[in-house]
């Protein structure tokens, strides 16, 4: 008699994520971003030689969520901390997980210079166009006209200048080995985002240099939108300023 399979597990928590409840708001895409990174670490077999760097923003507790060695870094300094780790231990896989305030405001110098030095680590850049953790103030990535708690009339050039496109800036730097902008608004987009994340880590594992994946993300709480509306706003509005694109792929060039 044939054995009956009672249940087959088709979906489970990645090994590289801990079994703790995340502190993110309902509908926030930080959780998806974590899961994708963890799946990639699992699939590439990197879990036991990875150091995650949590920075300052809503993801400050990332060291509790990634089940790897972890270092919590000061606001914006993740890429400098990653440099210190990677230069001492070139075989360790290192990634920073940074918001747009952390990376594009206070930490712009650190990320730019890590790229110019072709530092061999990976940056996960979660761009939700606001300072989520500090209650929704303007970020360098805030869109023109976007209302935030510090641009109550909408972002204007006089008050806040123009949005900053990080990938377009980094694309000019020769030290960059993999660079892509992705989003997580649909299953298809999520699969594409995961492909880019995987390539970024593969580029690092191959020692090709600096890699960064920008994830255009949602902050339903401070955008004052329902989660689905927030995803729709990404599609309708944000992607116009931040178009999805693979900017640099030295893995492909090497093939």
């Amino acid at each position, binding site marked *: 008699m044939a054995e009956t399979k009672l249940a087959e597990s088709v979906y489970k928590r990645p090994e590289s994520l801990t079994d703790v409840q995340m502190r993110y708001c309902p509908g926030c895409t930080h959780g998806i971003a974590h899961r994708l990174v963890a799946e990639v670490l699992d699939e590439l077999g990197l879990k036991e030689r990875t150091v995650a760097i949590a920075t300052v923003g809503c993801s400050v507790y990332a060291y509790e969520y990634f089940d790897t060695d972890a270092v*919590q870094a000061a606001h914006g300094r993740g890429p400098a*901390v990653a440099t*210190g780790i990677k230069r*001492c231990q070139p075989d*360790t896989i290192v990634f920073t997980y940074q918001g747009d305030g952390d990376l594009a405001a206070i930490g712009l110098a650190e990320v730019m*210079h890590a790229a110019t030095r072709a530092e061999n680590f990976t940056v996960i850049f979660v761009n939700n166009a606001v300072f989520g953790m500090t209650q929704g103030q303007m970020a360098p990535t805030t869109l023109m006209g976007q209302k935030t708690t510090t641009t109550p009339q909408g972002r204007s050039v006089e008050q806040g200048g123009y949005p900053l496109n990080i990938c377009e800036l980094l694309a000019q730097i020769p030290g960059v080995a993999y660079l892509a902008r992705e989003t997580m608004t649909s299953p298809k987009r999520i699969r594409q985002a995961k492909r880019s994340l995987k390539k970024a880590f593969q580029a690092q594992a191959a020692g090709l240099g600096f890699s960064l994946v920008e994830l255009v993300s949602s902050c339903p709480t401070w955008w004052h939108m329902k989660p689905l509306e927030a995803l729709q706003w990404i599609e309708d509005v944000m992607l116009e300023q931040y178009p999805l694109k693979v900017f640099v792929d030295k893995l492909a060039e090497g093939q």
Partner: protein
Amino acid sequence: MPERQLITGNEAAAEGAIAGGCRYFFGYPITPQNRIPEYMSEHLPPIGGVYIQAESEVAAINMVYGAAATGAWAMTTSSSPGISLMQEGLSYMIGAELPCVLVNMARGGPGLGNIAPAQSDYWLATRGAGHGDGRCLTFAPFSVQEIYDLVGQAFPIAQKYRNPVMILADAVLASMREPCALRDRLDPPEEKPSWAVGGDQKGRQRNIVNSLWTDPPVMEEVNLRIQQRYREAAQNETRWTEHGADDPEILVCAYGISARICQTAIEHAAEAGVACRLIRPISLFPFPTEVIADWAQRVDKVLVVELSMGQFIEDVRLAVAGACPVELFGRTGGMLVTPEEVAERIIEIA
């Protein structure tokens, strides 16, 4: 095999670090300590070490933070304005209980100031280390040889107390050339501390380096653990030298380059009939409080000599605790004192 060489204080700091086991250097150029990063960029790579020129002192100290998290013996060096920028990183290192060594070849301030010798970073060095309840363990050499020795010794001290150690010198000590006995270069220990991140994590619990403790009772516990280490450091690492009259009228307190000047000054004063004793703290935090308190009971007055307008004197006053008057002889803005001026002041107050 000890070898004597004529080298500058900057070179002594760099070679002292390498001899002490440091293999990782992250820094940003600033006068008067540029010879240190230059020396490191030349000497570290050939022995398997790493030299990185950071984009700022902010980045440099955070690179040290990352390096230290892996258990590596790492250092940075700078001068006053750069040390200001490192305060954030130092606070994070103290909070995360990470060791490192930094050297401050202090210069005149505030602001961009100048590149002349000053001791006006005393508070920055002994009270500073950014926000929060932590401090750097701080040592103040007064010769090229002592720079070499202290920088080397600072690495195991930093590891033992899991806290940044600052070597505080100045623009004169940085650039003066003196004979210095060099030791063989030690290798850093192969075994990593149990808390270090990275490497192969198979078969061990994951390590987290962190200074975020949102629960106040937990944060207090961390702070009390740090304070306990400071108490242990006070037991084990308090250092000073003293010499001069056994039955002095005046106790002179000075550290670093001013102590060196005071050595000659108390001889001049003795010739003029004023017996003095000189106490030179080598460790500024922990501070040699007891020995100063002891002598304060036996002298008429204390004279504090510093290249700042009353920073170091606060620690001396705390030690003297009102036992006798404490006078200040300070110069500032990059001005030095001369032995004659100090002797004159001693005679004046005697």
